[in-house]
């Protein structure tokens, strides 16, 4: 346990500290992001568009190092649409299995009835 606590304490941020936005250049984007998150039950994945807007505003105004969005983990593979698609896919799969199972149960009951 003590080993772990040593590791966990105080690792600095990867890209250093964010420079402060004293001139309020990106405040609008921040506001929009906050509003969006309130609407969507505090899930940042659903407000990816505003997140990207904010980070790009920071990059354009020299408040953040410029980097590819896909490298920052904001590509299409991790978007909310893919998650919903996966959910739908799994739901369909389960439904299919259910219907199959119901059919088999019906078959067996018919068979048992016939035997009887």
């Amino acid at each position, binding site marked *: 346990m003590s080993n*772990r*606590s040593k*590791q*966990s*304490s*105080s*690792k*600095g*941020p*990867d*890209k*250093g*500290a*964010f420079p*402060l*936005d*004293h001139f309020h250049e*990106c*405040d609008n984007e*921040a506001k929009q*992001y*906050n509003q969006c*998150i309130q609407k969507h*039950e*505090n*899930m*940042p*994945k659903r407000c990816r568009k505003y*997140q990207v807007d*904010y*980070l790009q505003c920071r990059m354009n105004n020299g408040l*953040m190092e410029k*980097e590819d969005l*896909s*490298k*920052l*983990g*904001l*590509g299409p*593979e*991790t978007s909310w649409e893919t*998650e919903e698609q*996966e*959910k739908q896919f799994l739901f369909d799969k389960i439904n299919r299995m259910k219907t199959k199972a119901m059919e088999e149960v019906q078959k067996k009951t018919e068979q048992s009835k016939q035997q009887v």
Partner: protein
Amino acid sequence: MFKLSKLFYSFKHSSRSNIQHNLSSFKKKRRQELLYNIGLYGAAFGCAFGAVPFYRLWCEHFGLEGDLDKKDYSMKGKKLDVFRKYHIEFGAETDPEANWEFLPVQQNVTVHAGETALVFYRAYNRNDKAVVGFATYQIFPEDAGLYFAKIQCFCFNQQLLNPKEELQLPIYFYFEPEINEDPLLKKCENIKVMYRFYKAKNQELAQLAENEYKTVKKNKMILQKLRDAKKTGAVSEGDLNKIKSTKFTDKEIEDFDEWAYDNPLEAAEAQKEEESKN
């Protein structure tokens, strides 16, 4: 007879030229050896330098990933469990000395491991003077803190807030996907992140900011005086230098309204409008 001819032969060829020939061949051999040596050491040195890009190419070719300069947050090779969500609460504490307002904008957020998320804190400096602060954080449960990776935040660095300034402080973070496999965190669904804002002991930055502000004001006052002087008429060099080196008291600097005489063009236009109205 033979021996005599041998003697005669050796006597003839053991002349100065023979010795010089031997010497020159000796020198040649040593020079060759020297060049070989230099070449060998140079090659070893060059290999040591060349190993760095070579290693990189090798790794790229065989697909071995390492911690290179630019870290990749796209989680390409890893399998993410998108449906196991963590409910993360954000809390804030301030130093009572500092007289700030420091609160999270989003009180809780739902993310899954490996997802990069942006969260804001809001800070407001109620003082009349600039203050330098320092933020640190704590995570409960502690075992989850191992997997909390920040891409960028406002912590571990002295931050200066101007008087009566309100700022949005962002945190850009993610939880590493390995958190899903930690046996101690199997039942963990709620994680709390607590930020604490301390007033930094050394307020040098604030002092610098204030001094800058004062010099800017002083320069504006001097400019105003110069413009006024030029309006009245031509001024000599001596008078200009005098005006440039006037000293103001602290009270005068504080009372000066810097927005009144900022843009002479605007003031002139405003005057013209007034005149045209009249």
